[in-house]
């Protein structure tokens, strides 16, 4: 179980996260939705300590990590036990797909090269990229790069997998292959925090959905509750606008 408490972050005077509390049960897939600029990505980045918040504590496996500190052993523990998938993949450019997945296993998990290679190949196979193992990121399409990035994250067997808009930077026709892989990973029982604008996907893959607005959690429930019977006015407005977009322009 992962528990986030009193998480607040602001950039100058702009409050991005306002005293967030969040408890994530093991195996939960939590979808985070909401309008742009409401701190969805910042939330993930704070949990992974890529941003340093003004206040915030994370409880994880009986450890308490103060994420306002700059460095420390607990923070490394946090980073080593959470995985991150970025919107823009961020694969290591000078390494092949296989080496990308092996990197964390060798450097952080201290695996031997053979062991790391075996594990990495299994993970690449899982995301359907094993035959591209010797390719460099620049040889791969966006969807393929994101699948390798997923393999890189899950190879570390994170207790919490953070996905920051994993399909937002992809061509529409490549979104499907990445979503397929994420669904597969979710089915394996990984605990995930998923920020996404693919509402239909969130609805089907998540077992809990959180609506974030102006740095606060304004809605929290099962996908059915949040999508079909939103309690908050802001959430209703958000869905109304979205459904409006999805409607056909003309009906003959």
């Amino acid at each position: 179980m992962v528990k986030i408490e009193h998480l607040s972050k602001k950039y100058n005077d702009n409050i991005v996260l306002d005293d967030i509390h969040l408890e994530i049960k093991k195996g939960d897939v939590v979808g985070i939705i909401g309008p742009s600029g409401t701190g969805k990505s910042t939330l993930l980045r704070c949990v992974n300590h890529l941003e340093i918040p003004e206040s915030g504590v994370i409880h994880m496996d009986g450890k308490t990590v103060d994420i306002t500190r700059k460095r420390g052993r607990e923070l490394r523990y946090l980073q080593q036990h959470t995985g991150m998938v970025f919107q823009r993949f961020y694969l290591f450019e000078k390494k092949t797909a296989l080496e990308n997945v092996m990197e964390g296993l060798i450097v952080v998990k201290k695996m031997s090269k053979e062991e790391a290679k075996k594990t990495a190949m299994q993970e690449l196979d899982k995301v359907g990229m094993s035959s591209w193992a010797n390719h460099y990121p620049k040889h791969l399409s966006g969807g393929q790069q994101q699948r390798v990035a997923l393999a890189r994250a899950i190879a570390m067997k994170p207790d919490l997998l953070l996905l920051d808009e994993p399909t937002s930077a992809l061509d529409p026709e490549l979104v499907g292959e990445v979503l397929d892989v994420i669904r597969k990973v979710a089915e394996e029982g990984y605990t995930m925090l998923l920020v996404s604008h693919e509402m239909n996907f969130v609805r089907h893959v998540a077992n809990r959905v959180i609506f974030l607005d102006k740095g606060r959690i304004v809605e929290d429930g099962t996908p059915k509750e949040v999508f079909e019977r939103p309690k908050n006015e802001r959430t209703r407005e958000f869905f109304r606008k979205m459904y409006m977009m999805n409607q056909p322009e003309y009906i003959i």
Partner: protein
Amino acid sequence: MGKLFDLKLVFTSIPELLEKLPITLELAGLAMVLGLLLGLLMAIIKIKKIKGLTQIINFIISAIRGTPVIVQLYIAFFGIPMFFKYLNQRFGTNLAVADIPGFVYAVVALGLNQSAFCAEIIRSALQAVNEGQIEAAQALGMTYLQTLRRIILPQAFEVALPTLGNSLISIIKSTSLAFTCAVVELTAQGRIIAGRSYRYFELYISLAIIYWVITIIIEQAIKFIEKKIRIPDQVALLPAANSRSVEEEHG
């Protein structure tokens, strides 16, 4: 009076000049290594904006870039012994200043000079590495030093290589000033040989040829390394033997 220009001497003196080639190469090599290490350190301090140190380093870089190499060599040659004498007087130690060969002064001076230029080259190369990859490494749980060594430096090296190659070439030429520290390298050897026959012009032509050839070799070597470390344009697919693939497309 003999011939105005003795073409034969230009070539016959080359073997004797080349006796001192190792000194020139050692000087340049050691100064380059020193320059790279110090330059990397300075670059990291500047990138990390470490308070106090950054200002000191900016000052050093400015001073080094704003003065000629030959002046720096003289300063090292006279300054380092004075510094040691001061230490001896102050602490009553007995550091043997006279035992330090001029070669060391030259390496220190040229290395420091080189570090100021390398610092800027390395800093811009390090900063050319995509911030996202650094975050990705951090997210995996890698420390900054691990990230630096395994992710940042290999990429920065590729970016910096052509410019660093130019630096190496320029330092090879700067070693010709090392005579100021009483080091007999290629150029000093040339003067000594020329002093015997008063054929200065011919000897300087020989020297010019030697330096030029060294430079051409370095240029070619850099080109070769650049080609070697570049990511190949195409790689063959591996046979998907045990792949239960979700793959439909190949593009």
